[in-house]
């Protein structure tokens, strides 16, 4: 039984590895055409990245967009997570559902909505946002907030509020308690949430497709526009860089939330989490 399950798992993991591996292998191929068996290896396509202004500018746009969206998500998401875990609010579940809801909306539809809003705003007030990062930041904020809220709330739930009461009874004010006790104890969740938010924004395609144009074309959109038209390993090279970044982020998240997870599951009757940053709670 266990062997059969192991075999099934091995097949599934192989399927998951196939597509990234194909990209990595093609990125080091000596020529533009794919060869079986390969005649050698070359890093020339990585050096050639510098000559692809669209991909380079896409990379920088995506890095900038990811950083802004993550920063804004932390500023709004951490207070929300505090309110949801420590505020004894009625209807807590409903508020959480509202904050997480953009994750289950079709990305392209949300992008169309934001695009329409930007057009209406321009008509009504004359404020032109087309061609700026603003519509992209707005759209990406919607999908980064959920990751911050979920991760920070999970972290706060697994720490003991009694610690904060003790700080208060020892004479610390509410702000001192927040800064010196509550937030440090949620550090793992904040870092994991920020990292997930950045990675999700960096790789997002559906939301950006309708909103990116000219200088604001993001890397996934630039890759999409290139792969459909040319056979060019340079795209594979830049894609390989993002694959490497994703793996590093996954390893770091596992490192950070490992201790958090252990603490969370040791409290009996608590809500057990298996994936890093609550990834298992897909909704």
């Amino acid at each position: 039984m266990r062997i059969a399950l192991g075999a099934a798992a091995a097949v599934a993991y192989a399927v998951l590895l196939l597509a990234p591996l194909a990209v990595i292998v093609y990125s080091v191929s000596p020529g533009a055409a794919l060869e079986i068996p390969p005649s050698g290896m070359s890093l020339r396509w990585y050096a050639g990245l510098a000559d692809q202004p669209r991909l380079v500018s896409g990379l920088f746009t995506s890095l900038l967009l990811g950083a802004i969206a993550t920063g804004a998500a932390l500023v709004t998401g951490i207070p929300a997570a505090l309110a949801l875990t420590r505020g004894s609010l009625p209807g807590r579940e409903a508020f959480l559902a509202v904050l997480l809801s953009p994750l289950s909306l079709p990305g392209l539809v949300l992008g169309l909505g934001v695009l329409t809003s930007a057009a209406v705003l321009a008509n009504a007030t004359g404020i032109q946002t087309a061609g700026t990062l603003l519509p992209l930041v707005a759209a990406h904020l919607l999908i980064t907030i959920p990751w911050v809220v979920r991760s920070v709330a999970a972290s706060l739930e697994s720490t003991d509020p009694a610690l904060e009461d003790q700080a208060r009874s020892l004479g610390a004010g509410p702000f001192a308690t927040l800064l010196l006790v509550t937030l440090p104890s949620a550090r793992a969740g904040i870092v994991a949430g920020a990292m997930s938010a950045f990675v999700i924004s960096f790789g997002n395609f559906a939301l950006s497709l309708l909103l990116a144009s000219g200088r604001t074309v993001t890397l996934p959109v630039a890759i999409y526009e290139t792969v459909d038209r040319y056979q060019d390993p340079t795209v594979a090279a830049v894609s390989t860089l993002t694959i490497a970044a994703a793996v590093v982020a996954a390893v770091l998240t596992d490192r950070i939330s490992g201790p958090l997870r252990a603490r969370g599951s040791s409290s009996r009757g608590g809500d057990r989490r298996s994936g890093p940053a609550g990834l298992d709670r897909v909704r």
Partner: protein
Amino acid sequence: MDRSRRRVAGLLLLPALLVVAVLAAAPIGLLFRVALYPPGPVAPLAGGPELDSFAGLLSAPYPSVALRTLRLSLLTTVLVTLLGFPVALFLSRSRGLSRRIQTLLIVSPLLMSVVVRAYGWMLILGRQGFVGETLAALSLPRAGLLHTETAVLLALTESFLPFMILALAASLDRIDPDLLAAARGLGASSTRTFLAVVVPLTLPGFLAGASFVLVGSLSAYAIPALLGGAAARTFVMEIYELVTISFDWPTAAAASLVLLLFASVLLGGAALLSRRRSARSFGT
């Protein structure tokens, strides 16, 4: 004390709620308004309000495209469940380093852009790709799967598999081992324990995972556009072309709202079913 605490909590929650309300709810509300204008190529967004854009969705090509999209999504959900269940079982029985490595294998693809993964499948399935070149190297007739529904199905299955594994594993991890021991102690065989105890208890995870996969594959754009193209047009591809090629915003808005409504009903239905089910089994 409690009251002021609640007031502070409300203030802390406000910015995030405002962001969602202004940036998600308002744009969707606007789509409603746009959908009420008379539809047509390069629609001037004047006149109406009328429901012609919704009525237009009943004529070709939308019904057949919607059916294909639904068929692809249902097949994806079935495949992901069949592949994901044994993996989730294996994962939930693994401990230590093995579990951490498996988690990495499952989570890493989620952190990669869907475009990059679709690109990988293009490289594998194309006539000039890994499959085609391998066939040619073996002096077999060159063939490829690119621009077929099968290619779309394959890539959709791969891209949603991690979500289903994680959802099912979360349910499996919550099963109390004492429950399994009790079933065994009462004389149930291991097969019967599995079918009568383990499978029903994974139902919440299955419902959450399945509804997410179904809605996600209905909304997918990059995978059907890159791997299917004209051979497998989906509903979201139609919406994209309505906006960017025919500039028929009212029809695009109406189609978006139909998709949104359908997705909400699916997700809401699954959540309701899951809640009722767990209420029944625990008598609360």
